[in-house]
């Protein structure tokens, strides 16, 4: 098993200060090379689940295991290389750094894992070439279209060839054509490289590309009608 969430729960404080449960005792397992879609209505906890799996925030209860390591028990410092080397993120709002060029945004993924720039540079350029954004390498995010920004963000997510890619509504702000490019890349990532992909999506066509789909409802996994098939 590549990643395993065991009984994870997360509660936030609402605007009135009252606790709001976002996830309640969720168990998830994902194997290497598997493409898993996470679907469900807005506010059901999809993004929260992705954040917990990606170590972007700690669960209130439960554990996350990566390979054979319980990463939720690691120190803050020890979690950093796991995030940098083993997990790639693609967000709905791209989350590029506005002060860096497209190429530097991609190379940022190498900086924090101690990978030399000269070693990462040809990989970054090849990725950008393949995604059709190499000619925009010197442009800043504000000078790129939404589709281009998402392709740059995708390049950054896979630069270090992580075994797990988490994609949170990566096609939410894209038109059909650009969405298809990103979905095809994610699919290809599983097939060709054996990486696991967990995709949060509203789109039925996107979920249909997955090996299986998890449905969340009010912070819990919805097992009615067989959750394991898309």
């Amino acid at each position, binding site marked *: 098993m590549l990643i395993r969430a065991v009984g994870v729960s997360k509660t936030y404080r609402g605007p009135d200060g009252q606790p709001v449960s976002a996830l309640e005792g969720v168990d998830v397992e994902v194997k290497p090379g598997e493409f898993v879609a996470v679907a469900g209505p807005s506010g059901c906890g999809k993004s929260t689940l992705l*954040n917990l799996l*990606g*170590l*972007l*925030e*700690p669960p209130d209860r439960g554990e996350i295991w990566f390979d054979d390591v319980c990463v939720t028990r690691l120190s*803050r*410092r020890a979690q*950093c*290389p796991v*995030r*940098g*080397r083993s997990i790639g*993120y693609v967000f709905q*709002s791209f*989350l*590029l*750094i*506005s*002060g860096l060029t497209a190429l530097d945004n991609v190379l*940022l*993924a190498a*900086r*924090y*894992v101690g990978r030399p720039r000269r070693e990462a540079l040809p990989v970054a350029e090849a990725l950008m070439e393949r995604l059709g954004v190499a000619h925009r390498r010197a442009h*800043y995010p504000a000078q790129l279209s939404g589709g281009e920004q998402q392709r740059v963000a995708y390049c*950054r997510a896979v630069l270090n060839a992580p075994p797990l890619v988490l994609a949170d509504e990566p096609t939410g702000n894209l038109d059909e054509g650009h969405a298809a490019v990103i979905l095809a890349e994610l699919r290809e990532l599983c097939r060709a490289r054996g990486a696991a992909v967990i995709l949060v999506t509203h789109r039925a066509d996107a979920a249909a590309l997955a090996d299986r789909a998890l449905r969340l409802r009010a912070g819990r996994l919805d097992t009615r009608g067989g959750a394991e098939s898309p």
Partner: protein
Amino acid sequence: MVSLGRLLPRGYLFTVLGIAVGVGGLVALGAMAERITRFIDGGDRFVLGQISVAGEGMGMGTGFTAGGLLRASRIEAIRRVAGVATVQPQVMLPLNPTTSQFLTLTQELILGLDPAVPMSNRQYRELPVRSGRFLRAGDRGVAVLGSDFAASRRLGTGSRLDLGRKSFEVVGVLDKTLTAPDRFAIVPLDDARELWLRRDPLLVQVFAGGAGTMSRADLNTGAAVSWIDGADPDAVARRIQAEVPGVNVTIPGELSRLLRESTAFFSALLFGIGALGLVIGGLSLSNTVSAAVFERIRDFGIKRALGATDLQLLREILGEALGVSVTGGVVGIGLAAAIGALVNLRVLRQGQQLFLFSPRLLAFALVFSVVLGALAATYATVRIVRLSPAEAIRRGA
């Protein structure tokens, strides 16, 4: 070598300007405080460097600049007092007799010296000459000007200067001392005596009527007295007062104390200006730097999602803070110096200087901006790294 472009990331223009305004305010207020401090210290240094003696009944503030008569016999008597090293007869006249004579440290003065007698002020054995030369024995009809005196009239070596309907050739201009000599026109003693004679109707009548026992050598408004090495200047001054009748002696220690007391208001003002500068500059700078860091909270969330450790982020932010603080500090110093130079240029016409941008002030401002910038950036970073990456991204959205 790290280039400024790498130290100063894109989008920091307004941060730099914010810091520049804060540092500029600090430097400008500091430069005013420096100017006043130097003036007070210079005056203190001057009075502690000599024993000033004037004709009886005239204080330093009045008689020493025209009116007090210290006759040659009295000067000889002073020379014989134990502990006295040299006595330099002087004629000190206000350039403009209608100006109040109380403010002897701020008004323009004509100082007559005998260049054959060594300078009696132990703090100013030689006045620093910026261009040309100082007076020489046997000179007549020449003048050496203080820097402000020369600058306000645009005079330089070789220029001509009219003083009391007598024309002088400027043979030298002094370096800036930031105290009284900056506003002096120094002329040979005999020329100064002649100017005094021309100005004072009473003296004209006295000398026209034969002057009795008086000669031109008696025309001194005062004398600067120095003491032998190891002597206590206050004790020597008191001895002169006791042994030489008909003179008014200033005790250096007492005068220094009086000067300090009379400038206590300025000292308090200086403290206030300095404190105000630190508060305004410090608040502006730290607020700007921490706001700039908090503004980029989303970027730091993204970087942590990409694996950045707390230390890597802190190092990165401190590097950026250093870049913007140094740039902002330098721009602020430049801004204050430009404004100060313009104001100084304007007030120079009145023989004044408002700002003094001393190296210690500029170094302090730069170190202050870097240290405070680093502290503010560290504070903001520590606050940010406490957040989870997801929380940082959410807050910065």
